């Protein structure tokens, strides 16, 4: 076979490969959706993070505004310290609420931010003081049973 013909076919193959990779990266993967380039990091303490994982989304009113950077356990206070990377475009007041929610019944967990009324905004390194833990199913059930029992008294 002619060398030129072979070159064309190989060129087509490589082009297809690049196109497929590009499609995988942008259409299938999250390469475009996580292009939160500049972020500021704030901290939040939780008594229980449930199934929260690093890179889990942070949402404000359902819009992704950042991602969980890291989760560590503090051995002095026995709680979890979560680092939140938030897009610089979005500012939140100092008294913002950070809640751990579950998307759907079986879905992944994420952090929902609910803005407070403070005039000052969160900046790099701040601590979110108002947090709500993940809902643990066992606790929920025992609470429910307890309240039922106390009603009957």
């Amino acid at each position, binding site marked *: 076979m002619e060398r030129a013909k072979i070159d064309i076919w190989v060129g087509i*193959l490589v082009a297809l490969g690049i196109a497929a990779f590009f499609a995988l990266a942008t259409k299938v993967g*999250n390469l475009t959706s996580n292009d939160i380039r500049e972020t500021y990091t704030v901290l939040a303490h939780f008594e229980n993070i449930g199934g929260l994982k690093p890179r889990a989304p942070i949402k404000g009113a359902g819009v992704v505004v950042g991602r969980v950077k890291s989760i560590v356990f503090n051995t002095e206070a026995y709680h979890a310290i979560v680092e939140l990377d938030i897009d610089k475009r979005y500012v939140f007041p100092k008294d913002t609420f950070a809640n751990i929610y579950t998307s759907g019944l079986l879905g992944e967990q994420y952090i929902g931010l609910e803005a407070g009324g403070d005039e000052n905004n969160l900046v790099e390194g701040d601590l979110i003081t108002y947090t709500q833990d993940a809902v643990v199913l066992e606790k929920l059930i025992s609470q429910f049973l307890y309240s039922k029992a106390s009603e009957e008294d």
Partner: protein
Amino acid sequence: MNKLINFFGNIGFAVRSRLYRLGAGTRLFFLTLIYSADSFKRIHLTIREVYFTGVLSLVIIVVSAFFVGMVLGLQGYYTLEKYGSSEAIGVLVALALVRELGPVVTALLFAGRAGTAITAEIGLMKATEQLSAMEMMAVSPVARIIAPRFWAGMISMPILATIFSMVGILGGYFIAVLVIGVDEGAFWSQMQANVDFSNDIVDGAIKSVVFGFACTIIALFEGFDAPPTAEGVSRATTRTVVISSLAVLGLDFILTSFMFV
């Protein structure tokens, strides 16, 4: 007693011959690296082999990928529907393809289509003294024959695996969205939310590079090592498929346990 001695003798012989092959294969690999510079001076040789290993495997890859994607779409839908989460089908299809089936099935098809062709070609070249003739012309068969095929395999395999994953996802899209009627927006957005570029797509690509290496070097070695007879070549071709398949599945387990745990 004699039987026992024979038994252990056979085991010893089998182990020894396998170790020999492993060593000889490694030797061939390093020789290939050493001679690669020589072969890159004639880059059209490598491009020609990319044509034979890559372009000629394209049809079987695309067709298989589309069917695999459609099957994943169907099976996934039946199962997910029971839990009322049929929108997650995009995630299921994409993760299964990008992480596992893309690289693994491509490697198995690659071993069957391109690997056997390489082994048979080199084995026949050896049987008809073409490799000897080349040596007598002071041209290294490793530089002229082995190295271009090695690099062609290393280039083709990741490209084919990427195309496989993408076409497979399109197959899943075809079944889930166009045939069954899952919401298109949910299909793609759930996929995007759950398929991570660096953890899933890049790891899948790394797998395909490793499999490409394994399949190509096995095919080359079997051809180079084949006894120069018709029977020897046909046996070597069979061995290429068997050993490549086992190597791919074994390596897949090892890589998966490193990557996704």
